[in-house]
């Protein structure tokens, strides 16, 4: 499996910390899989203008092509003004319609307070569904109080990230199997 763990913010460190934690758990438990962390804070991404994702060049095409080549994605997002940051929405806008078809996507959310718990449910999941993702239903929601200096200090979050990493792979593998069987059933 080819897994991309995407940190969807260009500022702050909490989303990146959480995404890296999930990615390293997935990698350590399953060294046979390719797991790559991509952080929007380290990339120069163009605003989407509707062109083919391969025609932007630079980091933009590199990121979009990596996402398109992935079997599974772990998407980490902070909450800005009761939604995902514009930087992450721009990544979705860069991709073609149905970009997440046959891909499993799981979600990590970092936020200042528990008031934002439903942001992923109401704002991120509809986008992923529209783009045909197989969404891992349970996401990990992490609050400001769960971090101290780029470290996750709440044990519950560690357990939940473990489960998220495991479920991401489980869903991706199960879906790959279903699809393989289904495709084999067609006579062409």
């Amino acid at each position, binding site marked *: 499996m080819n897994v991309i763990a995407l940190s969807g913010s260009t500022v702050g460190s909490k989303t990146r910390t959480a995404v890296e934690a999930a990615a390293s758990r997935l990698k350590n438990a399953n060294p046979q899989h390719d797991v790559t962390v991509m952080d929007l804070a380290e990339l120069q991404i163009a605003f989407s*203008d*509707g*062109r*083919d*994702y*391969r*025609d932007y060049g630079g980091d933009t095409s590199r990121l979009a092509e990596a996402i*398109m080549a992935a079997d599974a994605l772990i998407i980490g997002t902070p909450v800005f003004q009761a939604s995902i940051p514009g930087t992450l929405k721009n990544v979705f806008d860069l991709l*073609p319609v*149905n*970009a997440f*078809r*046959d891909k499993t996507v799981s979600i990590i959310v970092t936020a200042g307070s528990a008031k934002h718990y439903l942001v992923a449910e109401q704002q991120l999941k509809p986008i992923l569904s529209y783009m045909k993702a197989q969404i891992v239903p349970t996401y990990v929601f992490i609050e400001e109080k769960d971090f101290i200096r780029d470290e996750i200090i709440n044990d519950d979050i560690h357990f939940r990230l473990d489960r998220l990493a495991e479920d991401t792979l489980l869903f991706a593998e199960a879906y790959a199997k279903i699809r393989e069987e*289904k*495709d084999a059933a*067609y*006579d*062409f």
Partner: protein
Amino acid sequence: MKDIYGIDRAAGMEIGLYSLGDHMMNPHDGEKISAGQRIREIIDAAKLADDAGLDVFSVGESHQRYFTTQAHSVVLGAIAQATKRIKIASSSTVLSVWDPVRAFEDFATIDLISDGRAEIIAGRGSRTGAFDLLGYDLDDYEGLFEEKLDLLRKLNEADGPIDWEGEFRPPLRNAEVLPRPKNGRLPIWRAVGGPPASAIKAGYAGIPMMLTTLGGPAMNFTVSVDAYREAAQRSGYDPATLPIGTTSLFYAADTTQNALREYYPHLHHGFLAIRGTGYPKQQFAQAVDYRDALMIGSPQQIIEKLLYQYELYGQQRFIAQIDFGGVPYEKVARNIELIATEIMPAVKKYTKEDEEEVHPR
């Protein structure tokens, strides 16, 4: 009797072919022919279609990787020379990156070479390669096209020198644009895809519409057809006099099962190459249904699809893209044969418009 667009409605639906000039490997054997061979085979296919009695052959332009007919008017010039009766069109000319004067000169010349068989199908382009390459700003996507289509039509309708001024081209002062096509005017169509907005623009301008129906439920495209006719009516044109053409990906074989088996790798790999996403098998399996717009199946299946579409749209022309995704020449030739011997006669038979209705006395 032919109308001003050169269409004889009493003869039934016109059937033609189109190529985007895509240049890809054949996924069945991994072979990729040279660009030269690909272009010559497009010209050969046009000859074959002409001999077989098909109505139209058209070639489009895309300015990027995986394509080979960037200079589509040059290829059409060669086809004009190589053929005798078939109409020659573009599918489409991305007018936004042309000087309309130059486009008119080219196609009027093709018209004279072919003794009055040339048409322009002008589109905005669904790929963006041409804009960067030829120095146009994608932000002007809409403005460029609307202005240039407007100028092209003025040039076409001019009976002498004209004056013109616009945003994207230096003004014309007492300019005579030559040569004139054989019959004084070229049929000019607007290529329309996607949501009905573009169909509505075609209707308002009273210009024939070439509607792409690449796949999915055929019924979905009735929205564009209805919007086109309604807009035409509202802006004072008689929709009954405006021809509509439709286009689709096309592959026929002796049996539907063989068509599916032979074509799927072309479609899937072709989409991967030019769009960056493949074609899901589930969607392809559904496409066999007569209600789906993708033209795949046995000749009988395709006849059923076309007649169903005729009920929905009442179109005067259908053009088939039979060479997408590295389909080898012998299969292209076989498709032309199936169209000419089985599909076209049946479709024409049931789509003849009543002479009295078309040309009331």
